[in-house]
């Protein structure tokens, strides 16, 4: 396996979707090719960083508005229901 082939299969390897037979070749190449090993490692770290990224905090005024708007809409919908059995 050449570096170019490895690049092509990078996604499948990182996602664990690689064919087991190809996986052996892949790992054999990795063991003997430091640049490729570093690329695979840093791709994994990159994905992990974005996955664990601190989320965007929901702004409090928006949260309050959202809940108000939803409650009002709920009331409207309930009022128009033919069999109005519940209300907020």
């Amino acid at each position, binding site marked *: 396996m050449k570096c170019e082939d490895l690049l092509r299969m990078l996604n499948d390897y990182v996602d664990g979707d690689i064919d087991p037979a190809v996986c052996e070749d892949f790992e054999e190449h990795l063991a003997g090719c430091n640049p490729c090993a570093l*690329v695979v490692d*840093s791709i994994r*770290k990159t994905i992990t960083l974005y996955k664990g*990224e*601190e989320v*965007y905090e929901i702004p409090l005024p928006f*949260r309050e508005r959202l809940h108000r*708007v939803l409650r009002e*809409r709920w009331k409207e919908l309930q009022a128009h229901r033919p069999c109005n059995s*519940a209300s907020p």
Partner: protein
Amino acid sequence: MDDSVLVARAKSGDYEAFEQLVSRHERRLYALAMKIVRQREDAEDVVQTAFLDALEHLADFREEASFATWMTRIVTYAALKVLRKRKGLETVSLEEFTSENEEGEIPHPEYIADWRGDPAKIVEQRELKRILDEAIDALDEKYRLVFVLRDVEGMSVEETAKVLGITPANVKVRLLRARLMLREKLTRVFGDESQRVFRSHRHEGDERGATPAEALLKSYRQS
């Protein structure tokens, strides 16, 4: 209490149950909207529209997927709609220019070095967030969306393809590009310069007459 119980209660007219669902998921969904539209007011509109949609169509929600998944889809569609509007392409597919055509090079890893350690320990949280935001903002939208949906949100390749209206093969190619581009940018920040290594044998794909991107697409189509 399980989401499905709350959904059942909300369906039977219990607003408190619906509100509890909103409180449970609003934070994550707002973050998702921000990751797609990259702008606070738009993200707020997206989340509000999405929850209003959910409220109005709750009776139609057949619970084949979880409430979380259902809401993720609604938010994603609403956010993509904002992007289309922004581009003035409301009636045209976002992917119009690119669907089957993924020309061009797969970015070759240029800066290859072991990272200096845990980025969270190298820089402050706020600085880390800025670095991550800058790197992802620099990506073309089509790469950013695939990366966010697949890698950050954990959607499957098929689901990502469906949501974006592109083929699974295109998702894979774009994802590879996105990952490589982000890796490149982050390694320039977090890589250990003194340990940098240089490839001596790149561009082997060129010898076969096909660019790596073409070869990759071909291999996905065959599989």
